[in-house]
């Protein structure tokens, strides 16, 4: 199996590796870099538990090859907390009980935090649309919607 040298900026740090052509990005993150916060939940790009951000865009890392991330920037759940301070979305998820088993949570956080960057005041329908590629089997989604609204308020500095 052919191997390729890749260089990927992961959560701000340059990571270099020699990988097989077929290695999925999610396995590169989980197994080569031991960033196990990104999970695997299906084989068909439906569940979204593997969601990371590639050059800022939320993507399903089970449907990308590691070589496709060469020269690009990847952000995972492990990079959300900065300098010991939780991302507003992380705080909001705890505050609004937007997680139970925690398995979908990292992907959900990555999608929701990307939404908030493009739209600081999303409507309920926009939130539901944005997270509709991320399945959750525990929460029934309502508290996730509330968490995104809460984080949006905090980010806007609303009272």
């Amino acid at each position, binding site marked *: 199996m052919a191997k390729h040298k890749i260089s990927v900026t992961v959560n701000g740090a340059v990571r270099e590796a020699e990988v097989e052509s077929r290695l999925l990005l999610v396995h590169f993150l989980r197994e080569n870099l031991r960033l196990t916060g990104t999970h695997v939940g299906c084989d068909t790009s439906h569940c979204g538990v593997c969601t990371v951000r590639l050059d800022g865009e939320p993507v399903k890392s089970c449907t990308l090859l590691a070589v496709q991330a060469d020269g690009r920037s990847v952000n995972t759940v492990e990079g959300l907390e900065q300098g010991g301070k939780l991302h507003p979305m992380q705080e909001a998820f705890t505050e609004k*009980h937007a997680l139970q088993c925690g398995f979908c949570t990292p992907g959900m956080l990555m999608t929701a935090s990307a939404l908030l960057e493009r739209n600081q005041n999303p409507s309920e329908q926009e939130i539901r649309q944005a997270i509709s590629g991320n399945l959750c*089997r525990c929460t*029934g989604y309502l508290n996730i919607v509330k968490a995104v609204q809460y984080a949006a308020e905090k980010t806007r500095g609303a009272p």
Partner: protein
Amino acid sequence: MKTDAKICGMGHSMKRKEDPRFIRGQGNYVDDVVLPGMLYMDIVRSPHAHAKIKKIDTSKALKIPGVLAVIDGPTLEKYKLHWMPTISGDTQMVLPIDEVMYVAQEVCAVIATERYIAADGADAVEVDYEPLAPMMDPMKSIAPGAPVLRKDKAGKKDNIAFHWEAGDRAAAERALAACEVVAEQDVYLPRIHVASMETCGCVADFDAAQGKLTVHMTTQAPHAVRTVFALVAGHVGLSEERIRIISPDIGGGFGGKVPVYPGYVIAVAASVVIGKPVKWIEDRMENLQADSFARDYHMKVRLGAKKDGTMTALSIKTIADHGYTNASANPMKFPAGLFSICTGSYPMKNAFCEVDAVYTHKPPGGVAYRCSFRVTEAVHAIERVVDVLAQKLKMDPAELRMKNFIQPGQFPYKSALGWEYDSGNYPAALKKAMDIVGYEALRKEQKDKRARGELMGIGICSFTEIVGAGPSKDFDILGIKMFDSAEIRVHPTGKALARFGTKSQGQGHETTYAQIVAEELGIPAADVQVEEGDTDTAPYGLGTYASRSTPTSGAAAAMASRKIRAKAKTIAAHLLECSEVDLEWEPGKFFIKGVPGKFKTIQECAFAAYTNLPAGMEPGMEATNYYDPPNLTFPFGSYICVVDIDRGTGEVKVRRFVAVDDCGNIINPMIVDGQIHGGLAQGVGPALYEEIGYDEEGNVFGGSFLDYYVPTALECPTWETDKTVTPSPHHPLGAKGVGESATVGAPPAIANAVVDALSHLGVTHLDIPITPEKVWQQLRKAGAAL
């Protein structure tokens, strides 16, 4: 609330102790476990529902660098490990010798140094099958003269897995014959799958030097698994004290992680034979196609009543399709689970139900999908047929329910099928739900919309659950009684460690159990460390499913705490130099009656337990309780669903969903609401979308997320939840359990709403999932499709 926010006992919406690791991506799920020298396993599965295996050619697979071994049936046969019992006491192949019995059955397993190489190896294994005719229809399978499927069972002459019944058949028939009106309805609940976001898997690690097996695995019942492993593999030297099951963070369970699947056993065998840790993680298609399904109940329901709507008799005859083997996770005395709760919230005097379980060439199962042993089937049957009766009598479904409910003064209520309902107030719950939803206004809106040709429906479900298995006189799994446990240690500095026989899969036990200890001992919940899931450290218990954690281990936490409090009281009297009878308790401290300034805190008592004891007292501050519940608990609720239907596409949109639940006293309101929200979504799924179906050749529909539709945020409405509180009289905290109520109660509410929307078109029933196509066919038939 008895405690303040600092102590955070019952009734506080304490933020979860689990969350800090999960929001950082630092959970430890089974696929996160990596051990030195670990190998990977991938499973070759059957593409046929029924076939003879003529040859398994592993030569190409074994030539792949990194492939170390292929384990097949004959390999396991050498160790007599090719068969295993199911948790229902039936039998199933771990790996086949010469015949496969369902699509996706495990045929052999490839062990390799890397995950991808194991998959390459599985692809390279060549299996020569001779396809045989599959039996996919349970009605054909049960018919006389059908070919016998389980030829492995000596003397087996039919395809009946079991027959079970409850109640008085003759009396129910007599009562039905005397009824002025009988509502009859065939109700089918199809196969569905829990589809937890994490699939199943394990890392089996056999340490030959110590002769010790450690298995990190996705199990809801680690102790039960340990015992089963010891019973099954005792003959090859696996002894229970040298088996350790570790259930790490679990990414959702819902019943699907109760059974022992062949993959676990093969991984264990591989680790024992090769002497290295072996990881096996299912992919989603394996998970959906091969792991235990739920439901598959074909029910014939008859509900008899007087003309005024008074219900008097019920009979339900069920054919249950169990697939290749009965792999249900039911208590032994209840092979059809707690299906006999089917009289529901109504005091009918005569009832009878029976279940014939049938083998077919489908994957094995009969586990729950977030419900307490077939309660969903029972509730769907009764709540659907109550609406059929209402339609027949031209009565409002709310009025019919109100007229019939068991009244608050009738509790404890003995049902016709033998259960003693502990407590309830059914009219109050329905009244509250109707007030919240604005029932009368909705009926008017519906009338107006109908006049305009628009379709909307209102559906009610007033369910009674039966959870918390269970009292040891009746409840066991493979002989092991269904108590559960708590072990609490209070350290000298007043902090505590509490361990349990249950295992959270997202329910928040680390928080709620800590709150129970806080409630009883006054030690802040923040100071109570909760641990579960490691059989080497946790006390024995049967695990978490059937909404049993609060009824069993939650009760055990209270009882163990009370033992500690009793000891602390003796110590406090010693420290205060008074008699115990002079002491009063408020959360966190004992004080001398009438002298509130003279007190000793629980933390001071804990320190004294290790430093300054009364003469003759045993040091330490620990207690264990194995709680054997005196009865089950009976949570209930009334749900009202409002749907709108698109006449062009047949699509059902859940506009509103009001859920009034009563789970007795509440430990953490935030977590209870979260459980209900999630359960409701898992009610929307089966009601409208989810089904695992098969064609006549045994090919599966719904075997991946491409066509097994799990509801997204777009299909779920903004849930409207509220409560009534009717404590359980026998649970030490008055709690009942809540994890599954919503999954049980939601599907009939949704189905009733859809039928209600279409009732003026002559529709009296639709089986779930009520897909757009099913609705559109009805609309077309009635000439109402756009």
